[in-house]
């Protein structure tokens, strides 16, 4: 081993011993026993009693923050969503502004002002948007009749009218609260049968969806 290595070892040992050497001062035992005998120091964190629940301020603040986030998510977040005004398509469009304002609007249900036939109109529009096959067009017409919002025959989609908008985009734009109020016989049409490629609506017989 070289002299330099010896020297380095010695310096390291001395430095380490400098940093760890020493003993507690005289009377250490007495000070410890005095601290033990003294009443426990009150916790720096104040405990709040809420109806018998003992919570710390941090827990309370966390719960409050979580509640605030939840309220924001439920009440305000839909308003922050990107506008659902879609470019004109052969089958029609889902226009947030129009739908929210007009009679029979599906979006009206968001504020609790759902009108009869609102949800079927939504389903109908979605079906028209992606382009309907024969069965899809039938379900759309049925929905239209139910809602009382019969549109001119040429206003709906046809088997040939394929939308340039991918169904996935449409699915992403349908807000969950609208989905929840869709009548049960229509809901599967609007949601369950959306695939990556197209919306498939099962044929309808006697006003009921056949599964």
């Amino acid at each position, binding site marked *: 081993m070289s*002299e*330099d*290595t010896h*020297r*380095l*070892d010695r*310096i*390291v*040992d*001395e*430095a*380490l*011993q*400098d*940093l*760890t*050497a*020493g*003993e*507690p*001062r005289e009377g*250490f*035992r007495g*000070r*410890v*026993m005095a*601290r*033990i*005998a003294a009443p*426990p120091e009150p916790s720096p964190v104040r405990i709040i009693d809420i109806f018998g629940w003992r919570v710390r301020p941090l827990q309370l603040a966390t719960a409050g923050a979580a509640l605030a986030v939840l309220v924001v998510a439920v009440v305000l977040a839909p308003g922050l969503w990107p506008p659902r005004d879609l470019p004109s398509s052969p089958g029609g469009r889902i226009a947030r502004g129009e739908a929210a304002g007009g009679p029979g609007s599906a979006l009206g249900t968001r504020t609790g002002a759902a009108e009869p036939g609102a949800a079927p109109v939504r389903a109908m529009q979605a079906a028209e948007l992606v382009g309907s096959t024969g069965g899809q067009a039938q379900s759309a017409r049925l929905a239209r009749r139910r809602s009382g919002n019969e549109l001119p025959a040429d206003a709906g989609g046809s088997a040939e009218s394929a939308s340039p908008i991918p169904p996935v985009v449409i699915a992403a734009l349908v807000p969950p609260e609208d989905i929840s109020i869709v009548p049960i016989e229509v809901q599967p049409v609007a949601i369950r049968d959306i695939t990556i490629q197209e919306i498939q609506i099962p044929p309808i017989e006697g006003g009921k969806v056949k599964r």
Partner: protein
Amino acid sequence: MSETELIERARTGDADAFGELVERHRVAVYRAARAALRSADEAEDVAQEAFVAAYRKLDQFRGEASFRTWLLAITWNFARTRRRTSWLRLQRFTSSDERQVAEPPSPVESSEDALIQADLREQARRMVMMLPAKFRDVLLLAASGDHTLEEIGGILGIPTGTVKWRLSEGRHQLKARLARVGIGHE
């Protein structure tokens, strides 16, 4: 009186028995705290806190490890918590400790040599403190001479083999750093 008897008596509230335990382990506990904290005052405060906490948690000691290892683990947790506090960390690197003055030069050394030696040791101490914590802690705990490798493993919660490796690697890194700045070369 054996340690087990002292523990049993302390559990029943015998303050003298616990005082005897304090007396037996005070240096090891203090040095474990000292390994984590630069300040001697902080180390002593943490050592006291550790003994108080051990007294209050004595019922939780099941004897799976030795009382000393259990006590040192408590000490280390307190010391680490204290070390995490940012202002203390700042103090650790900036304040000078009145009880950590370099030893006076021996009469045979000239004053110039003594100054050089003191400067070297101070630089070496700084280098130690700049090591990654996982190496520094092991090096300092081992250097205190109060803890076996198994105890150090118990304190840090790592296997003894890891302790050995960190000890060797930490020392190697420290020497490499010192050599890089020209310390150790004549």
